[in-house]
């Protein structure tokens, strides 16, 4: 069992970084807790702009005519793209002002639709981001959010279409909680394996992801396939009683799920920072040894952390089905679960930070859809931006070097030191 302590230390250094209370960070880090994420996002956008310039033929044609023509083309391409991104994400300011002046209620709603749509996209991000953040807080790396989202969607869909005769105020919460239970199940298994056998949760959650993808394929081509689908892998529509209500008429999809997400974030905050259970979770997450000395139940804490994280991801899946898609299809998630790792990092694993990061990603992804139409830049640029942002957040030294920031006094060094030695020596 020599590798027992060592296994707990996968991600240790990083978790130490993340788990330091936010307040402490701000005091000692010259405000870098806020500055670094902001600079990371800006740097990501700059690198994205460079990529756009490098992959646009018109720019090369422009440089063929002369240096200024080339720079002009480059500016034009990037500004067109990012203006389209902004308009797609927030809405066209001119149109919004005109709509407000005209006082036409329908036009006002339409002009705000891009903004509302961004909130729709941000909603599953909030759930999934909270899931990964809660995992980090309990010292676990939940890379399985995607699989948990799949399970949440499967459970919610099943309850959504198969349970008949319930009033909406029971059916909708029931389907939503079923989704949470599905995700919780998919979180419980790796949590249990980690606590009981020391099986690395990173590998196990990756495996669980793929098991859930295969399971969904099977279900949608077999038991859960819509009878009249003509062979395409899609589930029946959920009943109207299970739907999470949307607030406005058809093209606007803004729904109650967004507020449920905010409420859940508040709940997670309260749980983590105001309850004994949450305190135990964070202590065990930050330093299992300390937790053990204080008489905390490490096994229980690990299982609980992973199960709750799974439940949160499951809610993301349930939300997508009950509020937006209303039917389950292959590829219903454009990788919310994988993006959520970036969200938790960007948000410093605090519920508030996760909400802000989710809003940002919601705006980016929704805006990128419009950018793709306006300037022919594939939506995949969002993944590239994300990768850059995670790199800068995870290795703040890079950002500090680029922007010549001072390295904050490493007052937590003595805390890191014994752990690092234990790893090296083991």
């Amino acid at each position, binding site marked *: *069992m*020599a*590798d027992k302590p*060592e296994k707990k*230390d*996968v*991600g240790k*250094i*990083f978790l130490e970084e993340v788990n330091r209370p936010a307040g402490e960070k701000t005091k000692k880090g010259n405000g870098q807790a806020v500055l670094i994420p902001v600079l990371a996002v800006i740097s990501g956008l700059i690198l994205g702009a460079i*990529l756009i310039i490098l*992959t646009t033929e018109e720019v090369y044609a422009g440089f063929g005519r002369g240096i200024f023509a080339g720079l002009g083309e480059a500016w034009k391409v990037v500004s067109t793209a990012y203006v389209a991104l902004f308009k797609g994400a927030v809405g066209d300011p001119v149109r919004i002002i005109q709509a407000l002046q005209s006082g036409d209620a329908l036009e006002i709603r339409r002009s705000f639709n891009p903004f509302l749509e961004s909130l729709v996209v941000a909603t599953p991000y909030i759930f999934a981001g909270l899931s990964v953040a809660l995992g980090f807080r309990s010292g676990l*790396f939940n*890379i399985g959010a995607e699989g948990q989202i799949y399970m949440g969607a499967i459970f919610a869909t099943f309850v959504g279409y198969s349970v008949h005769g319930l009033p909406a105020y029971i059916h909708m919460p029931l389907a939503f909680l079923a989704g949470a239970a599905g995700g919780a199940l998919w979180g419980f298994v790796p949590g249990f*394996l980690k606590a*009981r*056998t020391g*099986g*690395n949760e*990173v*590998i*196990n959650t*990756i*495996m*669980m992801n*793929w*098991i859930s*993808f*295969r*399971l969904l*394929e*099977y279900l949608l*081509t*077999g038991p859960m396939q819509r009878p009249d689908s003509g062979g395409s892998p899609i589930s029946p529509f959920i009943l109207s009683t299970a739907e999470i209500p949307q607030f406005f008429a058809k093209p606007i999809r803004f729904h109650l799920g967004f507020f449920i997400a905010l409420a859940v974030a508040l709940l997670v905050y309260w749980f983590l920072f105001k309850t004994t259970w949450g305190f135990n979770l964070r202590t065990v997450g930050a330093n299992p040894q300390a937790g053990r000395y204080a008489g905390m139940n490490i096994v229980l804490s690990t299982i609980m952390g992973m199960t709750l994280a799974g439940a949160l991801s499951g809610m993301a899946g349930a939300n997508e089905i009950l509020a937006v898609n209303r039917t389950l299809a292959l590829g219903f998630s454009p*990788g919310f679960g*994988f*993006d959520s*790792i*970036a969200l938790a990092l960007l948000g410093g694993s605090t519920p508030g930070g996760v909400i802000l990061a989710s809003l940002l990603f919601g705006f980016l992804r929704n805006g990128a859809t419009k950018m793709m139409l306006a300037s*022919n830049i*594939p939506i*995949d*640029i*969002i*993944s*590239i*931006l*994300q*990768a850059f942002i*995670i*790199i800068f957040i*995870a*290795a703040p*030294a*890079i950002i500090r070097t680029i922007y010549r920031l001072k390295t904050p006094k490493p007052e937590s060094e003595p805390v890191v030191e*014994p752990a*690092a030695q234990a*790893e*090296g*020596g*083991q």
Partner: protein
Amino acid sequence: MATTTITRRTIEGISPTRRIIYGVIFLVLALIILFMFTLKMDPATISTMALTPTGVTRGAVGDLVFPALPAMIVMNALVAIAGIYQIVWGFGKRTNLILGLTFLVFLITFLMWTAGSKTLFLGSLLYSGITLSVPVILGAYSGVLSERAGVVNIAIEGMMLMGAMMGALVGSLTQSAWWGLVGAIVAAVLLALLHGWLSIKYKVDQIISGTVINIFATGMTSYISSKFMQHYEHLNGTPIFPRTPIPGLADIPLIGPIFFNTNFFVYSVFALLIILQLAIFKTRWGLRLRSVGEHPKAADTLGINVIRTRYMAVILSGVVAGIAGAFFTVGSIGRFEEMMTAGKGFIGLAAMIFGNWSPIGAFGAGLLFGSFESLGPSLSLLGSKIPSQFVGMLPYIATMVILAGVVGRGQMPAADGTPYTKE
């Protein structure tokens, strides 16, 4: 922290509990074979197995025809005997091998049962099994190389995807499969360098670094594919490596058509198996590599440059992942499609764990896992009642079982995943 003790689990024998668990698993398999296949077999069934892949003439042999039921009873009995032997005496070090063999028997009886009196194209099945295993096995080698030096590499999938894209792009531009391969390797090595740079220099958590590379590779390949390769046909049509029979060996009956009449990638799997197994376990270089992964501080004390060794391991890991990526485009269909690696890198990771961080184990596990993939389509052709998706899940479940230590935990390098700080 002055006293650090090094305790290592012995691998010579397995504990009595494990021995009995194994034995019970063998017996359960025997019972499953008995009740699901043997007892349901019509005594009059004659099994026909085509041993040569269809369309191959060199080294072809006739079909194997035999009565199904007696053969099944013999195999069934062997598994049961293995189970009893395991519980009473135990196979010791050979337990894992026997486990593999019992699974093989299970597979064969299963195939015989599904095929019934229809012809089972065993040769084609093996051939496609090996071909489909290539990226899984190479991915597993890639993982072995970096993890033996203590760097967890979950970015194999991303490196493979990037390699596949670059292979198609460079191969199409140069109209040469070899240059495509070079392009794939360079692309994967660049990502490997990023992984090394982040996780060794900046000590970013290796899981995060790997995740970043996977996200980046997904985004970048899809971006370039949808911006250029889908619009300009000439950017996405690379020549592929032809089937090159090895003179002499390709004519050997039975194994010739399956192993020695394929392309560069299958040969590289075998070549790398021998090279890596010898290099890692029999050379000074390999000893240094492993010492860096097991106990970097001790290695450093003895004058081994830990940082440089780790960089080298990660770069080599990238080279192998690049070859694996090239297989998807210049090795098979000659086109790049978005997300075409479809999790093969992660199955490779699983195979590496299942194969106990050794090249030979990675090869065996990769072959097993890859064959599961080839089984799926064949099963539906044979009219099996078991959904192919469940067969596809088996590698993942097997890996979780192994990780949980139910059937003997693997020997993960002790310092795997730990950044090294020189003092």
